[in-house]
């Protein structure tokens, strides 16, 4: 009887462990801080570095700060976040996700299929242990992340080249944008002089959105708009704690 109860309790515990699936966030920036750990300018700086890196190499690196995922394994969490956000380019599979769980004091570098050669598990583990961990222990999260990113960039920068000039997110001709522009031209030509200023402004914003996919509005110098390229992951990378 006792054994039965124990088994039952164990089964319930186990099923809880298995089913308590954490929320999988959608990444809209290269650096997503859901814990308010970094300052705005620190985030902006990371975004700028990672965007420049993608612009020159097409390799996508994303950083995610999360508070806790309870007892859920960080390996599954990181894999699911990376997969759902399509980090990396399609065909190259050159995406990397750096997850930091602040309360759980755990981190993981998840490496896309295409970068497992440039950044093998042993190297990822060494980056975590030697470059990032000492800073995290002193609660210097920004320095730790920067050290991690710097090492990741150093390891992966020779692996891929950016072969699309600027329009990295578009697969094909931007018909949508063109139709939009034609619509506006017809619309405002028909209306004559009225509302022309506003129309031009909208047109301008539509154009800038279409060309880089990064401008998010009027006069907002918001760097680091992230959108996944469709890379896939196979569970490569390493985890660590501090």
């Amino acid at each position, binding site marked *: 009887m006792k054994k039965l109860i124990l088994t039952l309790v164990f089964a319930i515990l186990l099923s809880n462990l298995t089913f308590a699936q954490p929320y999988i966030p959608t990444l809209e920036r290269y650096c997503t801080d859901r814990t308010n750990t970094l300052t705005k300018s620190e985030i902006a700086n990371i975004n700028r570095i990672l965007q420049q890196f993608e612009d020159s190499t097409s390799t996508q690196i994303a950083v995610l700060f999360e508070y806790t995922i309870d007892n859920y*394994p960080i390996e599954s969490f990181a894999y699911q976040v990376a997969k759902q956000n399509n980090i990396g380019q399609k065909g190259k599979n050159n995406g990397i996700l750096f997850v930091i769980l602040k309360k759980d004091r755990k981190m993981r570098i998840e490496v896309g299929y295409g970068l497992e050669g440039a950044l093998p598990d042993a190297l990822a583990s060494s980056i975590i242990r030697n470059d990032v961990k000492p800073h995290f222990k002193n609660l210097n999260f920004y320095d730790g992340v920067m050290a991690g990113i710097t090492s990741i960039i150093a390891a992966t920068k020779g692996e891929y080249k950016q072969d699309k000039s600027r329009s990295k997110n578009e697969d094909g001709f931007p018909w949508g944008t063109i139709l939009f522009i034609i619509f506006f031209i017809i619309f405002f030509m028909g209306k004559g002089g009225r509302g022309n200023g506003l129309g031009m402004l909208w047109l301008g914003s539509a154009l800038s959105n279409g060309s880089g996919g990064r401008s998010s509005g009027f006069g907002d110098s918001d760097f680091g708009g992230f959108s996944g390229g469709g890379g896939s992951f196979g*569970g490569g*990378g390493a985890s660590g704690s501090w």
Partner: protein
Amino acid sequence: MKNKGLLIGLGIVVILIFSVVSWAVSTYNGIVSLDESVATAWSQVENQYQRRADLIPNLVNTVKGVANFEKETYTAVAEARSKVNEIKLTPQMLSNPQTFKQFQSAQDNLGSALSRLLVTVEKYPELKANENFLQLQTQLEGTENRISVERMNFNEIVRQFNTTIRKFPGSLVAGFGGFSEKQYFEAAAGSEKVPEVKF
């Protein structure tokens, strides 16, 4: 007048037959390409299992040198490994529940023997300072994680395949083409989690 009606009727029958045949062909081709995806996913699973098996001799040798008296634990690993090598599962055998179960239980045994070994050697601080051992440990962790990812992908594709060949109109084509359901990996107790190999 009568001829015209016959002609129309014949036309309808021809169109019907044509659309049924082309539906059957496209369904069949769909199943075939799903079958191919299952085989691809399977080879990924096998690759990762093979990678794990390849890491073992090196690991056992490293542990042997330092923790010589844990003989029982590392011979258990070696035995589990040789059992794993005996069972080869080709994609054609994926519909056979018995061989599939054998394959899975052999691999799971190896996994648990390995994690037992890694827990036992925790007692040896010399190993924790051994760079070779640390590297092997990272590689092993990575492989376990890749195995679970590939198993998940495999299950996902098999689920698609099985649904397609079991749903009603598709099942007719599948029966005709001789396709049968494929096996899934079952999550053995605790295998959802990467085995504890922390130090």
